[in-house]
């Protein structure tokens, strides 16, 4: 089986006066896994439900391959979906839950049983099939929901925070499983999450949303290396990128009376200067003072006050300056990020 290309064109959704999604253009390649990443309430679920056919778009078009689907009933769209609450049917056994989509298609019982067992084996829940959802663990429920979504071999798989109800350990394991399965069957998938490590680990490409709007759509490493604007820069990566707001003069970034030398390619006038804590050092030449030093395990996170701003610096384990000591901030020039006054990225 092969997934299908999914395109969203000018897609928008309003609930009365609430704008859940402003306009969204997105092109998901066949067989690709795309993650929607964004803060709570930014319209991720709304977008998925429009693709599934539960919500009617206020404007815009949805294509599966070359076919427009906005007017299609969910049952005619051939999508599978896993919900955050799993939404298993409590009055049916796990077997009947997984078989449910197949029984609707008038498939022979023997064939239904074969396919249910096959997918259950693949997901390691074969031994739970005759129990009810209330009698299996959260992880098993999650897999049952995934099995139910996949058993009908859909063209598109939609996953709405499928892992957020699992505890940390199973979660990392389930990430890998879902990814492996998705690549194996090659179904086009969209994963909604607000856990960035999940998005970065699982997806081929990540779409970062802020309230009602797409901010950037790119592969994980590009999001990290070349954030398109200050929102993405702040949102992706932990600890978050240092962003200083000030004024660019030729060859320098000016913050009150501090001058930070910058490499060429920077914008002019007001703007933002960004660098990640791991790209910052305490061996530079911008004067500051340590305010906090936290141990993160492998490294220490030092907070510096420079002029009016606070900056975080990741330093190797051995180094943990006491609060109050003076320090001199530096950063790796090749990993600097420039943003103009409106927050948009400037230069490579």
């Amino acid at each position, binding site marked *: 089986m092969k997934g299908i290309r999914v395109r969203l064109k000018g897609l928008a959704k309003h*609930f009365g006066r609430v704008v859940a999604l402003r306009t969204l253009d997105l092109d998901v390649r066949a067989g690709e896994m795309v993650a929607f990443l964004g803060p709570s309430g930014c319209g991720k679920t709304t977008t998925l439900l429009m693709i599934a*056919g*539960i*919500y*009617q778009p206020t404007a815009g078009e949805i294509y599966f391959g070359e076919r427009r689907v906005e007017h299609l*009933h*969910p049952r005619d769209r051939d999508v599978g979906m896993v919900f955050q609450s799993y939404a298993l049917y409590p009055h049916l056994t796990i077997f009947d839950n997984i078989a449910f989509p197949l029984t609707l298609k008038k498939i022979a019982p023997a064939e239904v049983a074969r396919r249910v067992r096959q997918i259950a084996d693949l997901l390691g829940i074969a031994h739970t099939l005759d129990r009810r959802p209330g009698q299996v663990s959260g992880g098993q429920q999650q897999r049952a929901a995934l099995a139910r979504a996949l058993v009908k071999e859909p063209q598109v798989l939609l996953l709405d925070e499928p892992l957020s109800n699992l505890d940390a350990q199973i979660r990392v394991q389930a990430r890998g499983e879902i990814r492996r399965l998705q690549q194996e069957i090659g179904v086009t998938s969209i994963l909604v999450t607000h856990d960035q490590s999940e998005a970065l680990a699982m997806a081929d490409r990540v779409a970062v949303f802020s309230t009602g709007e797409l901010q950037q759509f790119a592969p994980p490493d590009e999001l990290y290396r070349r954030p398109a604007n200050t929102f993405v820069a702040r949102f992706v990566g932990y600890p978050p990128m240092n962003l200083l707001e000030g004024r660019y003069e030729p060859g320098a970034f000016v913050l009150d009376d501090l001058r930070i030398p910058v490499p060429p390619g920077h914008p002019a006038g007001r703007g933002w200067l960004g660098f990640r804590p791991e790209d910052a050092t305490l061996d530079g030449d911008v004067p500051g003072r340590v305010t906090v030093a936290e141990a993160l395990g492998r490294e220490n996170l030092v907070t510096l006050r420079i002029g009016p701003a606070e900056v975080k610096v990741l330093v190797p384990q051995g180094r943990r300056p006491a609060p109050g000591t003076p320090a001199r901030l530096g950063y790796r020039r090749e990993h600097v990020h420039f943003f103009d006054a409106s927050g948009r990225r400037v230069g490579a």
Partner: protein
Amino acid sequence: MRRYAAPVIFLLPATCLIVAFFLAPVVTTLYLSLTDISVITFQNPQWVGMGNYATLLRDQFIGRIVLNTARYVVLTLLFNVGMGLVLALLSSSVHQRWGDQLRAVWLLPRILPPVVYVLIWQGLAREAPYGLIGTITGSSTSWITAAPWAVIVLANGLVGASFGMLIFTSAIRAIPADLFYASAVDGATTLQTVRRVVLPLLRWPIMFVTAYQTLSLLTSFEYILLLTDGGPGFYTTTVWSLHAYKLALSQYFGNVEFGLGAAMAAVLVVIGIVVSVAYLRIFNFRALVAEPKIEVN
């Protein structure tokens, strides 16, 4: 149009029944009340405008019927609400097991078929030595003939009290335990607690039960019909709704006057509509109609 196929199908059976046996009857009642329809004119009724209402106003017995109705509604209501309150308070202040039993027993009169219930009353009210009440009072006539109003109010009351009882019980259960502890700490006795804490908090449920039961008592006549049939004697216990029913449908009077009966019923229907529309305002209606989260049917 296909979009609304589902709601139409789902609503169809209920809508047909409601239109045929609720909405159409309301209109029909009002219409009949403006005609002279009776057994004689059944096929070809004449329009008489407010004629029936004028007849009603002139009727020499109408005053008596209104008084009977008021007496029936007020006395039964007092019994229902008062008894409901007593039962709710009693049953919630003893161990749950006993409370549940008490409530179950009081629900029985409501659940028994009315005819069986009335039969029991007739049996108990018989003259000495047969009836229990007769035996106790030593009366040689049936209690129903001797004190028809007492029987009617009690018979309706035993059925009606359970409604208030159930509503008040759940209201009492919803009172936070902290309030009782607080009042105990303040040194209130049990009776003071009931008066100062419980009763004020039951104000709304009491008003609701009163309003609801006023409306249903005003229009119900089942038990009176079965117990005394409006007697004994001439109109002794005839209330508005029973009189309307008998005017229009009773098989005993020779001339069945639909129009006049319908006029009396129309008065009740109008009162019913006004009061029940008023309920909409009591219910927090907007919260009940939150938009569905699925937009396809």
